[in-house]
């Protein structure tokens, strides 16, 4: 699993988090810690770009919810984008999309902030 962060020009407190590879039981805790640690101070709006995510298990999905809870506590937002169809179907199945907004593209997600 690789996670990288991009600042968004002209949108203070907003970052795009690119997640690549697999988030499974061996990496979910690291993913959760990295995601939550990003949310501090002025950084409270996250767009999580899953374009290069090939697999995520229940612990990884739980980490996304942990990040969402953290930003909500700071009146921030966490949105997902570029979710591949197989993962998106499971996101819908467990009704995670009822809690975390899912957008087709990064631009769309940023446009709703």
């Amino acid at each position, binding site marked *: 699993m690789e996670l990288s962060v991009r600042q968004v020009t002209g949108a203070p407190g907003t970052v795009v988090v690119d997640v690549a590879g697999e988030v*499974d*039981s061996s990496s979910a805790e690291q993913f959760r810690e990295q995601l939550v640690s990003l949310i501090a101070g002025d950084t409270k709006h996250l767009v999580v770009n899953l374009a290069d995510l090939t697999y995520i298990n*229940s612990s990884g999905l739980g980490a996304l*919810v942990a990040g969402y*809870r953290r930003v909500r506590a700071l009146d921030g937002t966490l949105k997902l984008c570029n979710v591949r169809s197989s993962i998106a179907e499971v996101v819908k199945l467990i009704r995670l999309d009822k*809690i975390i907004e899912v957008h087709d593209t990064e631009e769309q997600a940023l446009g709703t902030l």
Partner: protein
Amino acid sequence: MNVAGTTSARMRCELILPCVPGSCRKARLLAAEVCKDAGLTPTGEYRVLLAVDELCQNVVQHAYGGPNPNESFRVILTGGPGRVEVTVSDNGCGFDSDDALCREETMHEDLESLMHLEHRGLSLVASLMDSRAIESVIGGGTTVRVHLGRDAADGQAVT
């Protein structure tokens, strides 16, 4: 790893794995091969991989009181055209399969439930797959069988 009865029509793989976290990924990688051989869609394949992952994690975390390289569990994957069946069994501590949490077959959308999805593995598996059967005896081990897809022989979902 023992791969038996491999034909173009039906593939059966059996793994005996140590009760350690790395075994979940091994089972998942083999499941991916079986899903491809069975011609599942990427979405179907992902459902099966997630189910295999959850079932194996359940064993590793709970069957023997946590990871234990001296203990093992069995994963059987059977793939036919458009259908994959998974059986995960252990000789561990077992549990009360009549427990409400085990019988639960739908997921809840509240934050707390979703944040701890990994503790609701059996519910998630039930949501992902077309069928789920649990046999567990306290002190006598657990077997969970799930399947996804249609039986090519009669075109019917088999439960």
